């Protein structure tokens, strides 16, 4: 891939990261790690396509960046490289960390750890902002906030109660 410039996606690494981290921002508010004002600010930046500050994301989602840096090292790339972030969330790395029960995951019960994982799912129903998705034989309702154009039959990734992005 060296020397090859691929700019197929208009996605920035900051936006891509925040899409997946967005459900966790609610968790961080509940854990008292960030204020709800800060969460809303991130939400606004994400949903309105506004610039997102890297340093701020790194400070808020410390554990994720610790792991991103490890993966980046393995991949011999910068940890803000979109491919590294995709490998983390979309490749199985993120879920592997959860299965190994690292850090705060060790204190989470099995149901919560499943919510923490990124699942690939199929949309089977849609009503307003809610998608019914199926994965691993279970059906769940999640928010379409981040994929407003998702339709029945689409494959999406799911993190907590949110569909994150459409996937092939």
């Amino acid at each position: 891939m060296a020397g090859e410039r691929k700019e197929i996606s208009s996605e920035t690494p900051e936006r891509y990261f925040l899409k997946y981290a967005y459900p966790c921002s609610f968790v961080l508010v509940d854990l008292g790690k960030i204020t709800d004002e800060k969460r809303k600010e991130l939400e606004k930046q994400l949903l309105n396509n506004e610039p997102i500050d890297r340093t701020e994301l790194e400070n808020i989602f410390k554990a994720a960046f610790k792991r991103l840096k490890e993966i980046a090292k393995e991949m011999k790339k910068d940890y803000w490289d979109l491919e590294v972030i995709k490998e983390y969330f979309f490749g199985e790395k993120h879920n592997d960390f959860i299965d190994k029960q690292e850090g705060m995951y060790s204190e989470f019960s099995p149901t919560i750890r499943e919510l923490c994982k990124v699942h690939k799912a199929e949309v089977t129903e849609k009503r307003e902002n809610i998608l019914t998705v199926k994965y691993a034989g279970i059906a769940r309702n999640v928010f379409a906030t981040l994929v407003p154009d998702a339709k029945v039959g689409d494959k999406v990734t799911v993190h907590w109660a949110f569909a994150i992005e459409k996937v092939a």
Partner: protein
Amino acid sequence: MCLAIPGKVVSIDKEKGFATVNYSGEQRKASTQLVEVKPGDYVIVQAQFIIQKIPKKEALEAIKVWQENEKK
């Protein structure tokens, strides 16, 4: 209310579509739009929505772990 702690559904307002969820004495309202629940169910809430039911045994264990951590 903390997502990492399960709450217990104490009552449901079907018309308005929300449940009252109890967290060791503190009561919060959460929408039942995503998940159908009944009183006595243990649930996980995110952004004021019930997002998942959780088995009672697991819920009680999670609450216990949480309370022990609080004391640390």
